[in-house]
């Protein structure tokens, strides 16, 4: 995007310390700079990802052996895992099951509320959205900092609940179980309070992004000149604003229920537990798209830049984001086919298929964009291709779950578990990793070790599929979710899945090493390492305090690779065939 880039007015990068150690700490703790807040979110989210990941590995270890805690309690059959979650004989029958329930609740609640929902918008979105729009900051910088502190406080409530003994409700907090379990303890209330608080953080980020997109685009940037990542963040932010208050009132009523026994969700007092499910999924289904839409935005952007080709069907991708946001509000019933009338189930089943349309539009457009592109097969692109593969599996396995007749067999089995892990992890987390590598040089001013990052991506890909593809078979054969023990026939598939989860661990450790090594020994990143045309590649790497020396003026589209030469780009980094090179310069 053609604008002046004057090094005479260089102000120093946002990462430069403001003074001594404590001065720097105070500077970060009180900063209203969207870039620093984005980095702070990144650190917090990665920490929670680590916690949730440890819980997941503990679950997989427990499932390595069938340990029939109920049927076979007297033999103490466990070899490895009985020691892990406690021998069922030692703590009485069900003690191991009880711990298992708490660990999978911990894993689910942390991964959903504290990792996947905020992951992309709050970290990469916060950092990049204003720069991509050519703005100096988000619309409400102080609100942005507040949202980070609210996130930390909410997470602390959740961690406190875990320290006090954990919660065994599952991340969905279904009533009446959640209103009666652990009745003498505050931990369920604390966990619910944590999720309620995190909702505020989410709403504040959502409001900030919607207003930023409306009001802070650079001169010359119309709605259809925005990068698709910005479009996706915008669609996700609308859902955040409109869906989160409903979970707010739901969790508030749940807390009233536990503290005052008001009975709104308690059948013993005339209340309706199914009402809780409606309220819960009216939020929690749309929020699935808060999780995936920003990921889709990353894929659109990374895919176009790394294949140096104009994205195919820009408007179709942009509008399909809004389409998904719209449809997301009318499909919540498919989470509760078992608790609705037949007619309602049929209606929700039919509506659910609508989601496939905008989603497929995106996937087909992405694949068309690759056609005849100059593809740079680096880590962001590898992760993008992984996303296309795993997300498509995740999306397609949603269809048998939306179909009532097949769902009768598959619901509440490992098939569901595998499906949503393919969408949430194979979709959101893979896109997050693609974006993290793509914008890493921009965020921290250092290149990372490309071959090692690609190796990490491949290990993650293999580990992910070994872990979760086996679970489709488990589910189709009838293995129910949320059980610590199972019949012997499932053992082989469970063991494959557990081995896969440790391959995943190795993959993420490789990435951790790559990122740490990048800080220590990484080559200094150029302003535009990949040859992108969007505004963030015009800023320094890392960007200066106010992002740009002058307000940029937008004179071309975000993906006009056929007519514009990228700024500050050394094509020898990623050679492009002569016939694909742009001839016209700005």
């Amino acid at each position, binding site marked *: 995007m053609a604008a002046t880039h004057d090094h005479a007015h260089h102000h120093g990068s946002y990462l430069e310390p403001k003074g001594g150690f404590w001065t720097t700490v105070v500077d970060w703790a009180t900063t209203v700079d969207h870039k620093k807040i984005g980095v702070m979110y990144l650190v917090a989210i990665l920490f929670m990802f680590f916690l949730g990941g440890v819980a997941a590995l503990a679950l997989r270890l427990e499932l390595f052996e069938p340990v029939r805690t109920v049927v076979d309690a007297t033999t103490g059959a466990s070899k490895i895992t009985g020691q892990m979650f406690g021998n069922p004989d030692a703590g009485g029958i069900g003690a191991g099951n009880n711990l298992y329930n708490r660990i999978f609740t911990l894993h689910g609640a942390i991964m959903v509320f504290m990792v996947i929902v905020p992951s992309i918008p709050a970290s990469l979105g916060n950092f990049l959205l*204003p720069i991509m729009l050519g*703005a*100096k*900051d*988000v*619309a*409400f*910088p102080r609100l942005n900092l507040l949202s980070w502190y609210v996130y930390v406080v909410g997470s602390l409530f959740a961690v406190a609940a875990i320290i006090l003994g954990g919660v065994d409700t599952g991340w969905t907090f279904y009533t009446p179980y959640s209103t009666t379990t652990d009745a003498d303890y505050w931990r369920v209330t604390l966990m619910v309070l944590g999720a309620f608080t995190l909702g505020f953080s989410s*709403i504040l980020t*959502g*409001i*900030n992004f*919607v*207003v930023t997109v*409306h*009001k*802070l685009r650079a001169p010359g940037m119309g709605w259809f000149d925005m990068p698709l990542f910005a479009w996706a963040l915008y669609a996700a932010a609308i859902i955040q*604003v*409109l869906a*989160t*208050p*409903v979970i*707010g*009132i*739901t969790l*508030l*009523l749940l807390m*009233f*229920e536990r503290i*005052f*026994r*008001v*009975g*709104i969700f*308690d059948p013993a*007092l*005339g*209340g*309706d537990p199914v*009402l809780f499910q409606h*309220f819960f999924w009216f939020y929690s289904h749309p929020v699935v798209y808060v999780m995936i839409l920003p990921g889709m935005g990353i894929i659109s952007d990374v895919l176009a830049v790394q294949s140096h080709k104009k994205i195919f069907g820009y408007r179709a991708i942009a509008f399909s984001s809004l389409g998904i946001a719209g449809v997301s509000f009318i499909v919540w019933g498919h989470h509760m086919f078992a608790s609705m009338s037949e007619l309602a189930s049929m209606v929700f089943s039919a509506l659910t298929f609508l989601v496939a349309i905008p989603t497929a539009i995106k996937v087909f457009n992405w694949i068309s964009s690759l056609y005849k592109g100059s593809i740079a097969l680096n880590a962001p692109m590898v992760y993008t291709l992984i996303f296309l593969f795993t997300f498509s599996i995740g999306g397609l396995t949603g269809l048998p779950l939306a179909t009532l007749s097949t769902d009768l067999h598959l619901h509440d089995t490992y098939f569901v578990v595998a499906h949503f892990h393919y969408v949430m992890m194979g979709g959101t987390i893979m896109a997050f990793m693609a974006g993290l590598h793509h914008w890493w040089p921009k965020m921290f001013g250092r290149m990372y070790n490309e071959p090692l990052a690609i190796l990490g991506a491949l290990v993650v890909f293999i580990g992910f599929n070994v872990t979760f593809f086996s679970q489709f078979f488990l589910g189709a054969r009838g293995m129910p979710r949320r059980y610590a023990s199972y019949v012997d026939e499932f053992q082989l598939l469970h063991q494959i899945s557990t081995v896969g989860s440790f391959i995943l661990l190795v993959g993420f450790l490789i990435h951790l090493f790559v990122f740490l090594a990048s800080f220590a020994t990484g080559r200094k990143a150029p302003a535009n390492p990949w040859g992108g045309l969007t505004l963030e590649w015009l800023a320094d790497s890392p960007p200066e305090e*106010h992002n740009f020396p002058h307000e940029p003026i937008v004179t071309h589209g975000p993906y006009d690779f056929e007519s514009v030469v990228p700024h500050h780009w050394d094509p020898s980094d990623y050679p492009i065939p002569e016939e694909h090179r742009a001839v016209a310069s700005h």
Partner: protein
Amino acid sequence: MSTLDTRELGTLQRWQRYIHGHHWRSSAEEFDAVKFGFWLFLSTEVLLFGGIFCAYFIFRSLYPAAYAEGSQALDWRWGGLNTVILLISSYTMAASIYCVQKGLFSRAKLNLVITLLCGLLFLAIKILFEYTPKWSGYFFVLDPALSHHAATVVEGKTALFGLFQYVEGYGGKRPGSLFDHPFAQNADIPMWWSVYYCGTAIHALHVIIGMVLIFRVLLRVNKGYYGPTHYTMVEIVGLYWHLVDLIWIFLFPLLYLIH
């Protein structure tokens, strides 16, 4: 009184010295954005109360008799008075925005003080004449509802320097499992009180938040933060207060006027 504070005569007032955030091109642009953001926030508030209204309609359709009986235990005169009080406060809030825009600071402060007093009055009526008698059986002696309720006053059981008197069998109308009122005709009546308390308590919480915000605006108007060219905070606090009023406008007929 002149529009300029005498302590700062000769210098510019704070609102005249206001500089918009560095990422905005002008104050007008910033004002537009803040208002837009605040309307988004108000939509979240509407959705929050949407959950309460949704629960209200579902349980009303399930237990119409309990709702009819429960509503009769509310005195529409107190609810009506509170509605009038909030409507007056909405007017004074709007008037204070106008006054700040026109630089009529003492009138703005007067209007804000009246708004605050209305909020206090609303809460006082809510607590003294509605929550306390229903929850505990202690009855405010000046309550007109006493005259049309066949109840016996227990001599000698008073609270708060005799302002409250205990009325046999009048209280105990609490939500859910806390309900212990002996005269309930309908087994589902506790659900009515759950919805009543949840809805009005969350609304009262919003009244309190609104009053805190208005108090802050009052202090800052007094210090000269807001004036004809910069009154963003006054305006959005006004929007918030109108929303709090609006929600009551819906709660009042749904709770008090359905028999």
